[in-house]
């Protein structure tokens, strides 16, 4: 068993443990923290797969921005209100889990052959290549995204501004 | 000027509408005179047209053609021939007279006359258009002002009558539009030009189509299109069972609008069948005319007359008499004989003048008594002798008394039909007796007998009212004595039309 494999199993089991910790605690804030940890371990997994950019984005976007949003929402809403409907959530959740499991199992047995695909370049997924394409091929969408953000800012101001 | 005579006749009223809309709202008399002024040129041009029309030429005359939407081969194409000339004359005459019959309108005068002038353009356009697309546009343009004129200036149940009229006609229009598209796509190159569609009539297939549960009819494409067009036109005629909008619309419409409705709009149905169904779909015409024109027409004659007999409302009686009289037109058309078809077209013209008179006459007493109950009058002859005189002339003409125009056309129709369908002709002739029955009975109840106390002081018919009636009366007498004044113009075109269908008769 190579060092890579050992690392993988450690990271994988850690992320499984932490994702279980998302489900079981009664305190919602604890769940959220466990989710952040899970996402972080997945990011490290990406690193081991030679996808540093994806790993950084995973930390920035998921473990960073999205988790903050989660915590905001948890603080704004009263988490106790969710307690009464536990069974419904559990049922729904397990159904989704079973569906996912079935998909995974079927993928195991019916693996699309990777032979048709060309191998990816070494630098693929690295920050340089990403920046390269972002500022050449996708310069226009990049600029337009700034207009999109401008619209959202104006909207936020227009909708939240106090009268007078 | 004479190059574009039909365009002028069609669009003069539209120009009048613009002028009327620009006039100040309070100047009622100004609006009325302006409307009269703009309907006079079409009438004068109609007289010119009558004198310059070449009766020997069966083809189109006074043709005007200009590209309109070239990408789809849509043209501004107008002309007249023997099929339409009489209708063009009738339209010009009746609209001019009806402006004067509308003098008494005092609510929303400007709007009324503006819509009336728009209606005039639409009607004239339908009779002169020879491009199918143009025809359809005029057909619809005419529908709207009519709807408003009934719906705003009508009687107590005007909204109901207007909507009923509108929906019936619109249903027919949609069928017609689909038929137009079907013909357009069957022609090669695709065209809306009626003359070209007629020239390609052999393209419209007659191979039986299979559409359960009608397989046994062995109808082809041509028959289906024929039927779609026929229903569209039959609603306008109105043929049984599509006639039920007519009594409502007539009862609620103001007098002048009833005249236009009976005098011109009803003719469009029959005109459309002659102009479109006959030449474009001759084989289907040959197959279906007996049932849908001949037999249905005869049923119209008898059914209309029986209904008329049962009416208490004067206007409804005249309305049902229209249903009956339009039956003669259908019967005559179905005979494919020179007498029958020219009798039918002559009957269209005569019905326009005679029924126009009848509605105007009902309007005269309605304006004075504010009701139309036949039994509510009595002995008017003693109070209003001049009015009674004119009325009796119109009634006799409607009855088909020899010497008056109605007689000629009905006899021609029955003679023509006799050669083909003796039974239908005999049944149709019995309609004449029913007609005489209800009309004489009405004369007796309204004009004869003891004078109703309430109407002892009813004022005599006035100059304006006489002005609208006398020209029609004169025409009724002239055509009764000398029908060739009009028949000569029709004959060549109608014979040619007959020749298109006759080879396909089995």
């Amino acid at each position: 068993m190579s060092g890579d494999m050992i690392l993988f199993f450690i990271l994988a089991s850690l992320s499984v443990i932490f994702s279980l910790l998302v489900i079981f605690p009664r305190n919602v804030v604890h769940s959220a923290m466990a989710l952040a940890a899970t996402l972080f371990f997945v990011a490290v997994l990406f690193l081991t797969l030679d996808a540093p950019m994806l790993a950084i984005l995973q930390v920035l976007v998921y473990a960073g921005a999205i988790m903050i949003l989660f915590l905001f929402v948890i603080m704004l809403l009263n988490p106790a209100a969710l307690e009464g409907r536990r069974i419904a959530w559990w049922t729904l959740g397990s159904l989704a889990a079973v569906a996912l499991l079935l998909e995974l199992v079927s993928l195991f047995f019916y693996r699309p052959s990777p032979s048709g695909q060309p191998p990816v370049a070494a630098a693929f997924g690295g920050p340089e290549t990403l920046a390269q394409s972002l500022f050449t091929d996708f310069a226009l969408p990049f600029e337009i995204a700034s207009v999109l953000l401008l619209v959202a800012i104006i909207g936020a101001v227009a909708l939240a501004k106090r009268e007078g | 000027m004479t190059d574009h005579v039909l365009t002028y006749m069609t669009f003069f009223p539209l120009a009048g509408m613009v002028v009327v809309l620009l006039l100040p709202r309070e100047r009622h008399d100004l609006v009325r005179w302006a409307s009269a002024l703009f309907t006079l040129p079409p009438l004068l041009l109609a007289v010119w047209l009558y004198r310059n029309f070449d009766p020997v030429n069966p083809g189109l005359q006074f043709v005007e053609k200009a590209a309109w939407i070239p990408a789809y081969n849509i043209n501004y194409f107008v002309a007249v021939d023997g099929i339409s000339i009489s209708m063009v004359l009738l339209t010009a005459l009746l609209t001019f007279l009806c402006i004067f019959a509308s003098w008494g309108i005092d609510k929303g005068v400007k709007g009324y006359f503006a819509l009336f002038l728009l209606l005039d353009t639409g009607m004239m356009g339908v009779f002169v258009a020879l491009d199918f697309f143009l025809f359809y546009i005029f057909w619809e343009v005419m529908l709207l002002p009519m709807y408003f004129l009934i719906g705003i200036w009508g009687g107590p149940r005007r909204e109901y009558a207007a909507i009923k009229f509108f929906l019936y006609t619109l249903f027919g229009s949609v069928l017609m539009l689909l038929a137009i598209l079907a013909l357009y796509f069957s022609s090669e190159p695709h065209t809306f030009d009626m003359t070209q569609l007629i020239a390609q009539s052999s393209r419209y297939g007659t191979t039986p189509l299979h559409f359960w549960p009608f397989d046994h009819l062995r109808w082809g494409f041509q028959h289906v299109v024929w039927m779609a067009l026929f229903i569209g036109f039959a609603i306008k005629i109105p043929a049984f069972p599509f006639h039920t909008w007519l009594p409502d619309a007539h009862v609620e419409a103001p007098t002048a609008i009833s005249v236009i409705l009976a005098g011109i709009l009803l003719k469009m149905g029959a005109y459309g069948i002659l102009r479109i169904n006959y030449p474009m779909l001759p084989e289907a015409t040959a197959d279906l005319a007996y049932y849908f024109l001949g037999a249905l027409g005869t049923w119209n004659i008898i059914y209309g007359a029986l209904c008329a007999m049962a009416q208490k409302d004067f206007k409804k009686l005249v309305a049902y008499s229209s249903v009956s009289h339009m039956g003669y037109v259908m019967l005559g058309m179905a005979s494919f004989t020179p007498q029958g078809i020219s009798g039918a077209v002559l009957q269209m013209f005569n019905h326009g003048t005679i029924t126009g008179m009848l509605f105007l006459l009902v309007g005269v007493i309605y304006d004075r008594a504010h009701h139309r109950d036949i039994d509510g009058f009595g002995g008017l002859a003693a109070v209003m002798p001049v009015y009674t005189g004119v009325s009796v002339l119109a009634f006799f003409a409607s009855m088909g008394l020899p010497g008056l125009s109605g007689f000629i056309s009905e006899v021609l129709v029955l003679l023509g039909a006799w050669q083909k369908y003796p039974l239908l002709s005999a049944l149709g002739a019995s309609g004449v007796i029913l007609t005489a029955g209800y009309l004489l009975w009405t004369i007796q109840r309204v004009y004869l007998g003891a004078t109703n106390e309430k109407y002892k002081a009813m004022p005599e018919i006035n100059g304006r009212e006489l002005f609208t009636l006398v020209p029609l009366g004169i025409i009724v007498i002239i055509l009764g004595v000398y029908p060739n004044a009009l028949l000569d113009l029709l004959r060549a075109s109608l014979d040619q039309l007959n020749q298109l269908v006759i080879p396909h008769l089995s």
Partner: protein
Amino acid sequence: METNLAPLLPSAEVVLTALSVLLLDLFIRKDEKGLLVWISLIGLALAGGMALFLWGSHEGAFQDSILLDDFALFFTELFLGAAAITILSSVHYVRETNIHEGEFYALVLLSTFGMILMAAANDLILFFLGLETMSIGVYILTGMWRERSQASEAAMKYFLIGAFATGFLLYGIALIYGAAGSTHLGRIASALGQTKSHGSIILSAGVFLLFVGLAFKVAAVPFHFWVPDVYDGAPTPVSAFMAVAVKAAAFAGWARIFLYQLSPLQSEWTLPLKALAILTMTVGNLLAISQSSVKRMLAYSSIAHAGYLLIALVAGGESGGQALLFYLLSYAAMTFGAFGVLIALKEGENDHEAYSDFAGLGFKRPFLGMAMSLFMLSLAGFPPLAGFTGKFYLFRSAVVAGHIDLAIIGALNSLLSVVYYLRVIVMMYMEEGGAEGKPFARAPYLYLAIAIAVLGTVYLGVLPAPALDLSRISFISLH
């Protein structure tokens, strides 16, 4: 690297105008805000002039991810015109409702920018960004009348459902990228040509999701349920803007993506699209009949019209594309007009949107009555108005493509629609009571907008030839 910026000229001008409006808004007093209207209109006119100047060019920029062809320019002009009419008809409305004028006009302009991108984009990412810029702008416009709770509710609803639709769209784009290896429409098309079998399930799923996302945006049944509440709650000029411009932008994208680039897949989506068209027309018309508010009726009628427009997409080809573009023009004129008259009825707190508020309008305000009659008749499809000519070419294109059943169902549907359009006219001329309507002196800009709509409705109906040629040339330029 030489970069061709010409395709961006009109849209850049629009963004520039929006920024000027926003900045200037900070420095002027409340009674001077009329200036903002003029700046917006001048900016739109300049952009329109540029688009006109560029007419006939055929070039791309940024690896052809954005194209400058007559199709894009046609829609650019349409959106600019729609924005101008929206601004004209909201001048009085925003003052009455205390909506912040600077932000309002700026957002209209920025949404317009998004629409222009949608029509010009030749890359799914760019298309998506344009769509989002437009959508977010319109969500905010919907909720800008903050004193009215329905507006906030409508904005929230619109935002949530919009986000949902965006999800579909984005997922679809991701799947297509997975199957074709590019988001560039041209490369997707060539990938389609090369390997038909490989990844066809993923591709089909992607196309299907894209299809659903766009169906949300054009408000096709069964993705229409947000429309009545949103149109009803939004400020009326914004409802008109949504009904016309947002819909047109979605159709522009639909035409470029499905009618042109993905046309090899036509056989796969013809049947669902046909079902969608039939459902949309029929359900829209049936539900419109039972409304008691004219604004809601117009919302349902916009659904029905989306159904008619879908006919053109089913028909496809040159005649379908031409009919689509021409009908969008006609639809813009008559819909803006109808909403304009509705705006003219508003008095202070009372919106006057019920049928009964139209009673007697024909005699109280003859111009408004006549204009509304024209718009209603045109929407119902009466000759010689724009709506008739437009429907005529739509149904014709269906027949050309062999979908006679669609043409017949469409014709029957327009017959059905007469019932509710006519009710407005009956109210205006045959009943009494009802709202007064603003006189000309109190709303000159609005009257100007309505007059333009009247001219458009009549002109496109009586002399359709130039506009038809324009539509044909624009559509052909796709290829």
